[in-house]
C-alpha cells in the first residue's frame, strides 16, 4: 500500500513537472480611455503571462503602477485617485482558452477565445474575449483586444473630469511566451 502511494505521489509529481508551461514577464498591455478632450493611452511593458499548454489554462498579472502615461501627473492621478494602486496593486486574469484540445499549436494564426475572471481594482468579473494565437520556433504569441467599462470595476470618475475620461476602455495586449 505504502509503495503504491509513493509511486502515485512520484508520478503525480512528475506529471506537474512535465506539463509544458510558457511564460513571459515582459508582455505588453495598453489601454485607451481617450476622449475628444484628452489623450489617455498608457502602456505597460511588464505584464506577466503564463500559459499551460497541457490544459490551455492561462493567467495574466500586471502592476497598475507600471502603466506609463504621457504625463507624470496623469499617472499619479490614475494610481492615486482612480484605481487605488496602493490598495489594489495588481490586476489579474485567470482563465482558460476555450476548446484548447482542438487548437494545434503547430499551425499559424488561429482565432481563439479565452474565458475567465478579470480582477481590476479588487473587483472580479467573468469575461470572455477573443484573440489570436501564433506559434513559431518555441515562441507562442498571443494577441487580443477587448473593451471594459469602468463602472463594472467600481472605478469612479469625478464629475469635474467626466468629459475627459472615456467610460469605455479599450485594451490591447501582446504576449510573446517562451518555454518556462
Amino acid at each position, binding site marked *: 500500500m505504502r509503495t503504491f502511494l509513493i509511486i502515485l505521489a512520484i508520478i503525480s509529481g512528475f506529471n506537474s513537472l512535465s506539463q509544458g508551461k510558457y511564460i513571459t514577464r515582459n508582455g505588453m498591455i495598453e489601454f485607451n480611455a481617450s476622449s475628444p478632450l484628452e489623450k489617455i493611452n498608457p502602456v505597460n511593458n511588464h505584464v506577466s503571462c503564463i500559459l*499551460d499548454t497541457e490544459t490551455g489554462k492561462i493567467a495574466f*498579472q500586471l502592476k497598475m503602477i507600471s502603466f506609463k502615461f504621457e504625463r*507624470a501627473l496623469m499617472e499619479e492621478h490614475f494610481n*492615486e485617485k482612480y484605481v487605488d494602486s496602493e490598495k489594489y496593486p495588481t490586476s489579474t486574469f485567470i482563465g482558460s482558452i476555450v476548446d484548447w484540445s482542438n487548437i494545434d499549436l503547430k499551425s499559424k494564426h488561429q482565432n481563439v477565445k479565452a474565458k475567465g475572471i478579470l480582477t481590476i481594482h479588487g473587483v472580479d468579473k467573468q469575461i470572455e474575449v477573443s484573440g489570436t494565437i501564433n506559434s513559431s520556433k518555441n515562441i507562442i504569441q498571443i494577441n487580443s483586444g477587448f473593451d471594459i467599462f469602468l463602472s463594472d470595476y467600481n472605478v469612479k470618475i469625478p464629475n469635474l473630469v467626466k468629459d475627459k475620461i472615456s467610460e469605455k476602455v479599450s485594451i490591447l495586449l501582446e504576449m510573446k511566451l517562451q518555454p518556462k
Partner: protein
Amino acid sequence: MRRKVYVFFLLLVTMSSLAQDDLLTMLDNNEETLTFATFKSSKIINLETIEQPAEAELDFIICHRFGTLNSGIENLYGIDYGNVRMIFNYGLTDNVTLGLARSSTYKVIDGSLKTKFINQGKNNFPLTISTYSIISFDTLTALFSNKKKYADNFSYTNQLLLARKINSELSFQISPSITYYNFPSPFLELSRIMYSLGIGGRYKLNKSVSINYEWIPIIKSGDNIIHPIKNENHINSFSFGCDIETGGHVFQLFLSNSTAMFERGFINENVENWSDGGIHFGFNISRSFNF
C-alpha cells in the same frame, strides 16, 4: 510513516486542484514598489515637500498672501493687501528640480535646487529623503547695509526633507534647516546663522481634498539654543489649510502668520502672531506643463 505519506499525497492532490492559483503564484515576483504621491503638491503650505515635477515637466506655482485678518473692516480684513510669489520649477530629471522665483515681499529673487536621494519603499526604506537649497537675492537689503557690498544681498537656506507616507491618507514631513545671512536685517533679531525644524503633515479627507498643517520652530540662533515654544525674540511660523486637487491644478487655501513666501522669510522673519490676529489668508495655485 504511513500517515506522513498520506498527508504528502493529499498535499499533491490539493496542489494539482489549485493549479489555477498555482499559475498566478508562478507569475508573482516580489518587485519593490516605490511610494508615490506622499503630498499633492510641492508645498505643504510654505514648506517645500519631497514632491517634485517629473523630468522635463514645468511646475508653475502662484502663491498669494493677503494682509492680516486684524487689519479691520476698512481693509476688508487684509484682502486689500496682497503679496505674490511666482515660482517656476523645472524637472531636470525625476529627482533633480531647478527653481526660479520672485517674491513681491522684500522684492526677493531666488534660485533653488531640490534633489531626491532615496524614495520611500526602495529596499524597504521607510523614508523619502531629499534636500532643498535656495539662494535668495534681496534687492532691498543693500539699502540698509552700511558697507553696501553686493554680497550683502544674498542669503542661503539649506533644508533636509524627511518624509514618510504612513498610509494613503496620512503623510508627515520633518525639515531641519539652516539659514545663512550675509547681512541679517537690522530690524529683526537675527543671527547670521539660524537653525529651525519644520514639522508638517497632511491628511486626505477624500480623493481630491486634504488638510495640511506646518509648524516651523526656530531652535537655534547663532550659538544660542532657543526653546521652540517659550521664545520671546522670535515668532515661529504656523499654518494650516487644505489642498484641493482638480485634475491639472492643485489649489491650496490656508491661514498663516507668515507674510513672506520664501524660506528665509517665512522661517525667520515673522512679525505677526496668531494670538493677536496677525493671520494672513493665502492661496497657492500650481499647474504643471509638459514640453
